[in-house]
């Protein structure tokens, strides 16, 4: 049972069905299969074995989707780099994962990797996709010329990695999450059982979510298993998004509530548009307001389904389905604050600090167990043992569960900042700032922001006799962090409030900013 078994089946059974589409260009299952074979052969020819890693730096593009099938066939795990990170963050991930080949698409990303190349002597091959190859690089065509169209037959097993996704953690450095073929196959079964959307070949999904994110790449995996079609968007823009929903006769799409709201507010004729093919809008990352739900149902005339999951759980572990949304409108609005109930084959528990079950309605840490739970963290047995202790994945999310099994999230993660739908871990930002010679201490918190939900703010203690300026600190961060993580607001204090054991009291720091706004995600 490997994901590509389904993909190869569809390529034989219905070779002309499009697998991937972008900007009006289609790649059929038959053609995608041939290209993926050649690519897999080229990986093998380059000496890569089952379990080896490659990196891919690109915005959403058809070849990135083909690559995921090629690497799956070869048993090689792709590390899809978040293109919003800073070069130093890419360097860290490339070094941690020990990628043997780096693919970069477009002149901008080829240039970015080229500027790191002197520090990447352990990478054996650099491949330029849709861009000229600088000295020391080869083009994708030259790379593919190493292979043949013949199907690569390797003993790839269900427990081999299908991808390695890096997630920012509370400990400062990202951790590589090892997701296997079996994990993805379980996830597709779980999500398809939870959804009201159809599963027939040729079903069309629109994906604007970056493929480096689990929510993006899983849409490719789901399509490959179901024989469906993925229509890719390189960058989100509301008008094009709506046009594509209609022109591409999209059946399923995923977004965050703020995008639902953007579409409803910013597309003037949205109510007059015809979304007859749309079956399901999946949303996640935040609850939806009753008013938004009513408007969305009236305009899109489809089901809305909320999913909640972690990278470590492959995909959604709980879904609030279309029936739940109807219940909410029929007099149980509090259900909209729930992330729904556990998927099939998975169990969810809420426990106290000693991993003992808490009664319904009581808040504790959410644990999950099931065939969709990751194999572990890459090269990090200590973190793996900690996260999977007792055979349950510890989410770090504070949640409660009611008598009917509906799960409610309370504080996403104690100190995590959610800005513009993206998780930002303060520790990572603090570590970067602490490298600045003028700073003695720093704490990073989220403060209310009208546009982004939360904005990143740094409370700093300067070294004696130093007075660093905000602009200088921003520039300093820019070399080390992705733009969205950089604090825009700075406050200087004499000392940070700490508890007896020396931990910074972030609650105390946050309080003055949150007095007027209610932060709880409910």
């Amino acid at each position, binding site marked *: 049972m490997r994901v590509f078994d389904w993909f190869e089946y569809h390529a034989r059974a219905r070779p002309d069905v499009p697998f991937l589409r972008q900007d009006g260009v289609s790649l059929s299952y038959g053609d995608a299969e041939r290209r993926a074979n050649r690519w897999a052969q080229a990986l093998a020819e380059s000496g890569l074995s089952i379990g080896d890693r490659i990196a891919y730096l690109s915005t959403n593009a058809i070849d990135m989707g083909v690559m995921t099938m090629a690497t799956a066939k070869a048993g090689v795990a792709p590390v899809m780099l978040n293109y919003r990170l800073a070069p*130093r963050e890419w360097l860290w991930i490339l*070094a941690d994962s020990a990628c043997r080949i780096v693919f970069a698409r477009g002149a901008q990303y080829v240039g970015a990797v080229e500027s790191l190349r002197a*520090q990447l*002597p*352990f990478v054996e091959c650099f491949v330029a996709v849709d861009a000229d190859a600088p000295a020391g690089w080869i083009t994708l065509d030259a790379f593919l010329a190493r292979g043949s169209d013949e199907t690569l037959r390797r003993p790839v097993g269900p427990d081999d990695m299908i991808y390695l996704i890096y997630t920012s953690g509370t400990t400062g450095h990202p951790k590589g999450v090892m997701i296997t073929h079996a994990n993805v196959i379980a996830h597709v079964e779980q999500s398809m059982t939870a959804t009201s959307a159809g599963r027939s070949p040729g079903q069309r999904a629109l994906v604007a979510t970056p493929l480096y994110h689990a929510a993006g790449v899983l849409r490719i995996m789901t399509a490959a298993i179901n024989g469906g079609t993925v229509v890719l968007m390189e960058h989100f823009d509301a008008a094009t998004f709506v046009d594509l929903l209609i022109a591409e006769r999209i059946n399923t799409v995923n977004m965050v509530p703020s995008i639902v709201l953007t579409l409803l507010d910013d597309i003037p004729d949205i109510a007059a548009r015809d979304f007859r093919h749309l079956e399901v809008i999946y949303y996640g990352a935040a609850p939806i307001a009753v008013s938004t739900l009513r408007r969305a149902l009236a305009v899109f005339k489809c089901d809305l389904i909320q999913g909640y999951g972690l990278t470590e759980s492959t995909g959604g572990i709980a879904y609030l389905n279309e029936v739940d949304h109807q219940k909410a409108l029929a007099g149980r609005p509090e259900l909209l604050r729930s992330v729904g109930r556990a998927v099939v084959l998975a169990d969810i528990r809420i426990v106290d600090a000693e991993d003992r079950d808490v009664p319904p309605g009581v808040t504790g840490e959410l644990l999950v167990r099931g065939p969709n739970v990751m194999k572990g963290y890459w090269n990090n047995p200590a973190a793996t043992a900690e996260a999977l202790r007792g055979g349950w994945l510890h989410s770090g999310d504070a949640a409660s569960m009611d008598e009917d099994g509906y799960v409610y999230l309370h504080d996403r993660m104690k100190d995590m900042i959610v800005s513009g739908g993206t998780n930002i871990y303060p520790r990572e930002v603090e570590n*970067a700032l602490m490298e600045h*010679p003028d700073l003695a201490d720093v704490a990073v918190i989220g403060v209310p922001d009208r546009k982004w939900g939360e904005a990143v703010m740094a409370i700093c203690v300067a070294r004696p006799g130093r007075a660093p300026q905000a602009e200088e600190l921003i520039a300093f961060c820019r070399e080390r962090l992705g733009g969205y993580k950089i604090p825009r607001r700075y406050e200087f204090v004499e000392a940070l409030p700490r508890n007896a054991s020396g931990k910074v009291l972030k609650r105390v720091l946050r309080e003055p900013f949150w007095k007027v706004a209610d932060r709880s995600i409910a």
Partner: protein
Amino acid sequence: MTEPIAFKRPERDAAQREAKRLAILRSAAKIFNERGFHRTSVADVAEALGVSKPFLYYYLQNKEDILFECSRIATEELHAVLDEVRKADLPGWPKLEMLFRGYAKVMTTDFGICLIRNSVPGALPRESWDKLRGGRRRLNKEVERIVALGIADGSIRSCDPRVLSFALFGAFNWITFWYQQDRPLRPEAVADYFMEIFARGVAAAPAAGRKA
């Protein structure tokens, strides 16, 4: 035949045979290190062990095989060090310190010394040499990778990981030429001293503008 009593009993299991083989290899490594591989014959090894040549040939094919096995043991020990380092949840520089502390330990054993001093080009048949070189290349790559990790996490200043790797291996491999196993200087202390030199340099007057 003049076999010592210890070697006379019939072998009961593979473990016993392996222990004997290891004892032979350790003695052989010592002799190679003292006299040099090219100036040592199988007869010399047998004589030093107090065993016959046929007895040796029962355990090992020829002189090159003995050298290869000695070097392979050192390489395996180095890879065990690497595995530990890889699993350690540490920034780049402390990882590098941990790796070279382990490296220095192996480099002060008979097998480690033999690997560096005697496994030189021409000493081994092509196939064995390629295997050893493959192992060393993996070690080099691992150090380059850890250096890159350190640059990315801010624990190592921006530098060329390959050149730094050469410098580190240069310093640590040379331990095999001066280290005296009977002296009190422990290999970890050598490693710490070396890493301190790499970390801070030795010039007394700090260059202008350097961070305190």
